[in-house]
């Protein structure tokens, strides 16, 4: 019994923690940043996520091409409209100018004959 008691006492005697005990416990509680990144990249490397990323990129490219085409189409329509308006304006200006100059010339020609 004494032998058992002394053995128990020895086993249950307070032992001082080693110097680096606290550090080891804290290290286990907070995994390293390198370990965190690895877990994120690991997730991204999975096949479904990769396919989803490729699909999203393809959608963005299609949308960008569509917007670019629409802008070009809009610029083309605006340009054609401006061209048509410019042609109309030049037609009117030229017609009015020539009509007026022709009338002025006719008046000048008729004036001497009227004076007679």
């Amino acid at each position, binding site marked *: 019994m004494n032998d058992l008691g002394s053995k128990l006492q020895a086993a249950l005697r307070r032992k001082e923690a080693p110097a680096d005990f606290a550090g080891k416990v804290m290290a286990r509680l907070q995994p390293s940043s390198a370990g965190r990144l690895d877990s994120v990249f690991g997730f991204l490397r999975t096949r479904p996520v990769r396919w989803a990323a490729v699909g999203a990129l393809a959608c963005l490219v299609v949308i960008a091409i569509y917007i670019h085409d629409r802008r070009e189409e809009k*610029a*083309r329509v*605006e*340009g*054609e409209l*401006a*061209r048509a*308006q*410019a*042609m*109309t*304006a*030049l*037609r*009117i*200006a*030229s*017609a*009015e*100018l*020539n*009509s*007026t*100059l*022709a*009338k*002025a*010339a*006719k*008046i000048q*020609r008729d004036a001497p004959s009227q004076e007679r």
Partner: protein
Amino acid sequence: MNKQLIPCLTAGLMMIAFAVAPVLAQDGKINISNLESLAKKAAEVVDVNLDGQMLELATKFMDNEADSQGKEILKGLKGIYVKGFEFKQPGEYSTEDIEAIRSQLRPPAWKRIVGIESGSEGERVEIYVMTGVDGQKIEGMAIIAAEPTELTVVNLVGAIDILKLSALEGKMGIPKLPEPKK
């Protein structure tokens, strides 16, 4: 004496500057927006408002040979503004409407080069030009053509070649006018 002369000279120079500044500041563009109210009464309306940017855009789309002469004229222009109205009956516009335009075409900036009035037909056409400082180059043109049932105002801003503009007749879909009867 010198003390009195300097302020007088300064005042005189300032007066000249104030008198000349409006002339120098004008760029051949007149305000024809007052005619917009006539659109409601008109059977047909032509409304063109092309500033320098739009003209540049228009010339980019004038690639074919038929447009080359028009493109040549547009190159020197900074703006084209046209208001044209055709009415079903006479009396839809007033002399005040035209006078508001004409009041902007006064000397010394503007000069009337042609003015024709036909009392029997009630027709009046005027062509005004604005020349540059040298008095040679045309920097603006305004045409006012008023008939009982038609009113057209054209304002061209920028360097204008009247000969080239006149030569457009018969081209670009512009019909050639018949020879006047002798």
